[in-house]
């Protein structure tokens, strides 16, 4: 009976399995395979077998390690700001306010624009001589700052733009969590004599804890993989100020044509992300069972 059902299920799954296989598993397996060789797009063929040579050299590559550091700084700051601000916005949207739907649509808009468009838009806005931002700032006496070209402000500016775009994602997850909170405990709390602040502290926060973790971890993973925004805004510059790991790997593969090195680096990145996503799925599963 059960094996019959499984057989049937398998038949229906085959098309999507093939599709996934061709588009995800095969490239993944192939890149894993070539990460052990010395593949260089300038030359034909697999090149020499390197064992873990590519991995070793990646770990010794100070620019690679530097890009990981930049990524960590970028991701942590972005997620912290988005979380704090996003939760505040979500709390506002969870109240009864007039015109909520309109504001909500506005908050959601940035999320629906592709990062490349966002990047281009902001590059124009921030243009040092022609941009609206500097024009506005000139009224309060700040003139001609090249936000994205200055070592001191480049990463901060990129972070600002990423927050601007991605915060709606955070708002959405947290708001979904808030909306689905049971309302009975709040009634009980008000009977028990809790003030609004106490309800928030003793009921909302603990009940939201799993949602917090999931939102933070999911966003951490996507922040770690940020690539397109950097590509459009700064190309990792000035110098390596905004060079995040995805962009660095891209450069290895398509500028320096060191395909197998890039593959090895990608797998190192994957190794960093797996535990994070494992924890996230564990929490999600626990919550669904509870």
């Amino acid at each position: 009976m059960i094996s019959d059902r499984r057989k049937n299920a398998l038949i229906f799954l085959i098309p999507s399995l093939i599709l996934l296989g061709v588009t995800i598993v095969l490239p993944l397996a192939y890149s894993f395979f070539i990460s052990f060789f010395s593949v260089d797009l300038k030359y034909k063929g697999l090149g020499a077998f390197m064992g873990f040579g590519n991995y070793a050299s990646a770990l010794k590559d100070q620019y690679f390690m530097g890009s990981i550091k930049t990524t960590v700084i970028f991701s942590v700051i972005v997620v912290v700001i988005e979380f704090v601000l996003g939760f505040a916005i979500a709390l506002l949207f969870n109240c009864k306010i007039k015109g909520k739907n309109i504001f909500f649509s506005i908050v959601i808009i940035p999320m629906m624009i592709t990062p490349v468009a966002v990047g281009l838009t902001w590059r124009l806005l921030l243009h040092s001589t022609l941009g609206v931002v500097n024009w506005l700032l000139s009224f309060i006496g700040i003139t001609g700052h090249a936000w994205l070209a200055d070592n001191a402000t480049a990463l901060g500016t990129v972070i600002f733009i990423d927050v601007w775009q991605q915060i709606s994602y955070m708002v959405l997850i947290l708001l979904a969590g808030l909306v689905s909170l049971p309302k009975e405990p709040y009634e009980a709390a008000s009977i028990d004599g809790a003030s609004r602040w106490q309800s928030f502290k003793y009921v909302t926060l603990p009940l939201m804890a799993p949602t917090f973790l999931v939102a933070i971890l999911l966003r951490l993973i996507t922040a770690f993989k940020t690539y397109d925004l950097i590509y459009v805004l700064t190309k990792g510059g000035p110098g390596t100020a905004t060079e995040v790991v995805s962009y660095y790997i891209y450069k290895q593969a398509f500028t320096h044509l060191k395909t197998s090195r890039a593959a090895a680096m990608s797998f190192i990145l994957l190794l960093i992300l797996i535990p994070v996503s494992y924890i996230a799925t564990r929490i999600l599963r626990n919550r669904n069972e509870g």
Partner: protein
Amino acid sequence: MATVQLKNIKKIYPHSESKQKKGLFGKKKDEEPEKKHNLQITAEGTVAVQQFSLDIADKEFIVLVGPSGCGKSTTLRMIAGLDTITEGELYIDGRLVNDVPPKGRDIAMVFQNYALYPHMSVYDNMAFALKLRKMPKAEIDRKVREAAEILDITEYLDRKPKALSGGQRQRVAIGRAIVREPQVFLMDEPLSNLDAKLRNQMRSEILKLRQRIDTTFIYVTHDQTEAMTLGDRIVIMRDGFIQQIGTPHEVYNHPHNLFVAGFIGTPQMNFFQTRLECENGEFYVPLYGTRFELNEKQKQMIKERGIEPQEITLGIRPEHVSLCKEGGVEAEVDVSEMMGSSVHLHCSVQGEEVVVIVSGLELGEEHASGFSHGEKVRLHFDSNVLHLFGADEVNLL
């Protein structure tokens, strides 16, 4: 310790906004229209409670009863401050509290759906209100453990509500209320999920609690025994209206109308369609060829109130019908329910059902285990305890 006064309270639930998208992702509200019974529906919405006036004395135990959906919980929630009062005035301890949030009303409540804090252990659920009051830890601990002992949930103190059965959760909900010493206790069917034995036990615990804390109680229940044994006064509701307010004795012996008569008492009162007749100035009620003479008190009242002969519904409680050897009315047994100390006989008399309670003492040898289907019996109706309801369903006497 407080009086509670409700003055012409009315609650209208506005028409649901489900058509205008509700919440994020058009989330469905859980209390969307189930069955609306016969609640009045106006332009503003569903009228769940209306014309509710009641003066509750200090330390009184009031029980609200009525069929499902009649507005008991709504009334309680308005007193608690969880639902807004659409119209009317609510005073607690002489203070108008219509706009006072629950926190400022000094009440404790047992919720019908328990409303436990899912993330807190049983202990913390019960201790929460005390912690908010900054009570010393040792005292909190003493009170929580004492309540847990009373409710027999000591062994679950470390568990989360999720890991408890319905009855256990309900006891935690009671525990959360009784660790406090509020001005008013509100309890919404606090014993509904307990087994019979536990329910009896908890009922007496509530009586003890009342003696100990000695405060005002407002208690909602479906259970007649609870209503009768606990209440100083009982409020019977139907479709948002109060039907009768009275002591257990009053509502049982002098039901104000047909609804109350049918609602209070199990098995239900027997009803017969008949007439109030008058012959030579003497009132009587004919039933199955016999004549019920009214007693002196009843005749007096009929005279005083100037009641005319008319179509009536005659009500006689099953315990006021007895079996007799001869005379009376012939009946045939349909069902015989053995209740232990007594037997409930469902008989048919000329096609109508009459329920009779026969106590064990009257059963005799041959009927020790009840009656069999189709057996012929003779019924005697006790005319001293008749209830006469007029065409408007109101008790004539």
